C-alpha cells in the first residue's frame, strides 16, 4: 500500500528549477533513504510533501499523517521544550497533546522540559524537533538531516528508536542524511538525487555497493 506518492514533481523558486520531474513513492511501513549532494533538491522535496512549497507541475499525494523534522531544526525558540512538543501534536486535538511518551523515548529532554528551546544546544534542539514530529503520531516521518549536530551515541540511540517505532508501530520513514552509510544501513530502499532529478533508485544494500554511490557519497576512494 502506497503512503506517499510523488509523480513528475517540478518546483521552481523564482525561475530556478529546484525539482525537475521527480517521482518517488513510499509504502506503508517502509524505510527509505534520500541522498544527494548539497543543493540537489532534497529539502525542497520535503517541503513539497508537507505543502510548504507549491508544485509547479506534477502531483504529491500523501495517504495518512505525515510529520517532518525540518532542515535546521526550526524549534520555537522562545517557547519551552514542553510547549514545543505539545504543539507538535497540534493536529491531533486536545488528547493528542500528552508529551510523556516523548520523554520516555528521549530521556535527555526530561530535565530540559521547562527550558526555552532557543537556549538548548544544537543537538538538544534536534531532539526537540524529532520529538515534536513524533508528537504528531505520524504514519510517515520525514527527517531532513537526522544526524545534524548530534553526537554519534545520540544518533545511534535515535536510530534504534526509529527502528523500534518502525517495528512496533509500523512507522514509515523518509530519511535524508548526509551520512549516506548510516542512511543506507537503516533503510531498505534508497533514492539518489542530483540537480533536481532522481538519478538512481533501488535496494539500499545494492546501492551501498554501487560504484557510483560509493564514489560520490560513501567516500569510496578511501575504502
Amino acid at each position, binding site marked *: 500500500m502506497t503512503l506517499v506518492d510523488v509523480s513528475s514533481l517540478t518546483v521552481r523558486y523564482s525561475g530556478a528549477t529546484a525539482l525537475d520531474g521527480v517521482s518517488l513513492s513510499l509504502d506503508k511501513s517502509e524505510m527509505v533513504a534520500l541522498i544527494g549532494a548539497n543543493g540537489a533538491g532534497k529539502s525542497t522535496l520535503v517541503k513539497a510533501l508537507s505543502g510548504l512549497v507549491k508544485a509547479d507541475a506534477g502531483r504529491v499525494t500523501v495517504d495518512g499523517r505525515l510529520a517532518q523534522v*525540518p532542515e535546521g531544526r526550526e524549534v520555537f525558540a522562545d*517557547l519551552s521544550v514542553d*510547549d514545543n512538543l505539545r*504543539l*507538535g501534536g497540534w*493536529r491531533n486535538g486536545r488528547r493528542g497533546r500528552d508529551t510523556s511518551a516523548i520523554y520516555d523515548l528521549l530521556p535527555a529532554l526530561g530535565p530540559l522540559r521547562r527550558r526555552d528551546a532557543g537556549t538548548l544546544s544544537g543537538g538538544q534542539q534536534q531532539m526537540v524537533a524529532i520529538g515534536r514530529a513524533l508528537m504528531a503520531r505520524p504514519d510517515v516521518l520525514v527527517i531532513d538531516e537526522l544526524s545534524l549536530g548530534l553526537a554519534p551515541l545520540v544518533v545511534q540511540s535515535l536510530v534504534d528508536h526509529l527502528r523500534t517505532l518502525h517495528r512496533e508501530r509500523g512507522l514509515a520513514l523518509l530519511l535524508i542524511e548526509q551520512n549516506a552509510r548510516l542512511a543506507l544501513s537503516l533503510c531498505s530502499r534508497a533514492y539518489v538525487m542530483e540537480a533536481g532529478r532522481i538519478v538512481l533508485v533501488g535496494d539500499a544494500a545494492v546501492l551501498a555497493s554501487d560504484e557510483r554511490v560509493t564514489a560520490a557519497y560513501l567516500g569510496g576512494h578511501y575504502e
Partner: protein
Amino acid sequence: MSDFLGYVLTGLGIGAGFALVGSGLVAIYRVTGVVNFAQGAFAVIAAMLTSSLLTAGLPHVLSESLAVVVAAVVGVLVGVVAIGKPGTDPGTSLIVTLGLGVFAYAVEIVLWGDQPRSFPGLSGVATIGGARIQAHYLLIIAVTVPVFAALALFFTRTDLGKALSACASNKYAARVVGIDVRRMGLLAFALGGALGGLAGVLTTPVQQVTFDSDVTLIVNGFAAAVLGGLTRPAVALAGGLLLGVTQTLIAGYGGGAYQLEVALLLMLTVMIVQAARTGPVREAAR
C-alpha cells in the same frame, strides 16, 4: 499628598486605556508582524456603538459587551484586508491598515456623525486615602487588571494561546507542525479588535470620543507597547500605566497643556535608545 494619590489613581485609569490599545497592537504584531494602524479605530467604533446601544435602551454591560464583540469582528475584517493575501509583507500591511483607519472615518461619520460622543459610566466619586476621584477610573482599573491576567493565562496556558505564540516565535515551524498561520493572524486581529474595543468602551465615559480620536489613542497605545519592543503584553501594561500616570501628574501640577508632548517625547526617547542599543531597529521578520 492626597492630590498626588488622586492624580496617580486617575493616571492609572487613563493609562489602563492606553495599555489596552497597546496590548491590542502587541497581540497583532507578535503574530503577524503588522503594526496595525487601525487599532485606534476599534476603540472609536466600540465607543460610538455603545453610545447608540445605550440610547436605544439596552442596559450597560450588555451594550459594552456587544460593542466589544463587534470590535473583534471589525478586527477580523481589518485582518482579512491587511494580511488576507498571502505573501503580503508587513510594511505593505502597515500602509493598508493606515488606509483602513481612514476608511473607518468615513464609516464612523456616516453612522454617528462628526460630533464628539460620550455616555455615562460608573457615576459617583470615590474617596481613597483622602483622595477624591471619579469612581469610573477605578472601574477601568478593576476591569483592565483581570483582562491582562486572563490574557497572560491565555498565551501561556492554553494550546490556542501557545499556537499564537508559536506563530510569533517561528512562522515556518508553525506551518511545519500544521498551524494555520493565516488563521492565527486573523485570530490575533480579533483579539486586537476586542482589546481596542474594550479600551474604547471603558474610557469614553471619562474622555469623549470623536471619529478622529484614533490618532491620540494609537500614538499613546504605541508608546505604551514600544517599551516592550511591541512583543510583550505585560510591558505594554506597565508602559501604559506609566504613561497615564506621567500625563496626569504633569497635568495636575500645572503642565496641563504639555501632557501629550511629554508622552510623545518619552516614546521617541525610548525608541531612539532602543535603536542605539540594538543597531538600526530591524523590520519585523517575515
